[in-house]
């Protein structure tokens, strides 16, 4: 079973990177100290570092990375377009807009949960608008168009907030937040993101068979007994819940949802259903690795995670374009 082997390899990679993520940080704890603090609770400061700083950070990397990978794979399968990603349907940018509004109005500093809650509200409004715009029987194409329109609108409104911001410090805050990061997150963030993330995963995990059938097109899939309307609803809500929760706690992190399904597709025989689980694991691994990279490359400069994923993602994407061109013989 080649497929099973791939899943085990990816799961092992996630576990290994998770462990590595726990061992890296500015506190400079030794491996032994880290482990005894985490597992046995030895050493007061070390326990604080491990359990309150590094553990939530690593957990969030897994949650957010898996959500992005899974959502990307589901969206690409549904749209039958390898360029689809969570950002495409406007959920990321709308959640970001919600967060930016919280930062701008000062709500974010009033309560620790104000920013994530505002981002989630943004994601939910986006999904409602999206379903309204795409209509009751709209196919993949109308969904893409509605998503692009929504993305553009949310992006423009975010720019407007930045444009009109009277306070340069608030502006800097917003700009840094928009880059996406997992630094200084706590278990409060984990508990906020976890339920919605799991709910989103649950909705997306059930789409495998429908996505496989969609390989034959929407008409053939419908004739195979797939209820496309119900599937689209589960897809949009699942992406909104998982990615919305991710943006709410980590900011907008691009390229993971686009690049991970791309890289793993050849390894699952291009089957959209099998790509779901593989991409979830792959997304978690990529984000853990990027977050480790952030701390290793420039430990003192607070390098932003979203910047790093884009720096990794863009060249990979360019390579993919060349490969696709070579295959097309152009």
């Amino acid at each position: 079973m080649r497929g099973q082997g791939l899943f085990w390899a990816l799961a092992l990679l996630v576990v290994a990177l998770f462990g590595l993520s726990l061992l890296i940080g500015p506190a400079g704890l030794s491996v032994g100290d880290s482990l005894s603090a985490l597992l046995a609770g030895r050493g007061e400061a070390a326990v604080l570092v491990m359990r309150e700083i590094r553990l939530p950070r690593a957990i969030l990397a897994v949650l957010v990375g898996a959500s992005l990978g899974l959502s990307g794979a589901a969206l690409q399968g549904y749209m039958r377009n390898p360029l689809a990603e969570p950002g495409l349907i406007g959920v990321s940018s709308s959640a970001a807009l919600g967060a930016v509004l919280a930062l701008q109005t000062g709500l974010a500093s009033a309560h620790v949960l104000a920013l994530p809650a505002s981002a989630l509200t943004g994601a939910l409004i986006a999904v409602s608008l999206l379903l309204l715009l795409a209509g009751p029987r709209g196919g993949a194409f109308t969904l893409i168009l509605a998503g692009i329109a929504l993305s553009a609108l949310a992006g423009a409104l975010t720019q407007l907030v930045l444009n009109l911001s009277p306070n340069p410090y608030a502006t800097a805050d917003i700009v840094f937040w928009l880059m996406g990061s997992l630094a200084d997150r706590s278990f409060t963030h984990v508990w906020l993101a976890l339920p919605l993330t799991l709910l989103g995963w649950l909705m997306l995990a059930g789409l495998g068979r429908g996505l496989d059938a969609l390989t034959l097109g929407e008409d053939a899939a419908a004739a195979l007994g797939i209820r496309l309307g119900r599937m689209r609803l589960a897809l949009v809500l699942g992406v909104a819940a998982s990615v919305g929760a991710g943006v709410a706690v980590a900011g907008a992190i691009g390229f993971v949802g686009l690049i991970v399904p791309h890289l793993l597709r050849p390894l699952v025989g291009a089957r959209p259903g099998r790509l779901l689980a593989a991409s979830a694991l792959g997304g978690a691994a990529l984000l853990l690795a990027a977050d480790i990279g952030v701390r290793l490359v420039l430990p003192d400069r607070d390098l932003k995670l979203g910047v790093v994923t884009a720096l990794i993602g863009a060249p990979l994407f360019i390579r993919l374009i060349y490969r696709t061109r070579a295959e097309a013989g152009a």
Partner: protein
Amino acid sequence: MTGLELSHLTVRRGACPVVDDVTARLSPGDCVGLVGPNGAGKTTLMRAALGLLPHKGTSSLARLPAPERARTAAWLPQTREIAWPVSVETLVALGRTPHLGPGQRPGPADRAAVDAAMARLELGGFATRCATELSGGEQARVLIARALAQEAPVLMADEPIAGLDPAHQFTTMALFARLAAEGRLVMVSLHDLGLAVRFCTRLLLMHRGRLVADGPPRAVLSEANLAEVFGLRAYLAETPDGPVFQPLEVVR
């Protein structure tokens, strides 16, 4: 016995009826050819009959719940879409979708259906080939195999021979005729009236959304119908090699 019963089936696009009050009863064992000029409503009729379009009137297939309908009727759309570079075997196995319960993996019966469908279309050596890298004719065969793997008593195909070379058009229609002779109901839309006369046991002739003739091929392709619907005069005769149809001139 599973056939197809259409009663006053009507589909409107805006105010304009694309399929207008079509009533027909099709029974198993028939290879029904759906003929008519472009825009006559052939595709719309089949999609509405399957319940894939909102419609007025009734279709015995559209009334079934989606999973049961999928086990009753296989549908080959005109566009031969294969979105991802999956293997031929994987693609054919998609035909088993309606037979699998939630989370159920394909079993020996599914395996056998896939193998039988591939063997029937002579795809034995293609199992592990990438479906998107095949030629157009090979892809068409793979998609027909997918429909056969569905093991449905009704098969509906929208212009399945469009774009195939003459030999493949011939073998494909011969296959559909054989599938019908085995007791299935096969409904196929096509523009090649010569092949329709040769292989179909019954023709439905559509014109501007209406069903204007229904019966044995020779009777449906009468001089009057050909002139009225297609604007053609044609040579149609029974020969020792079977019926021969050849358009001679455009009469309007």
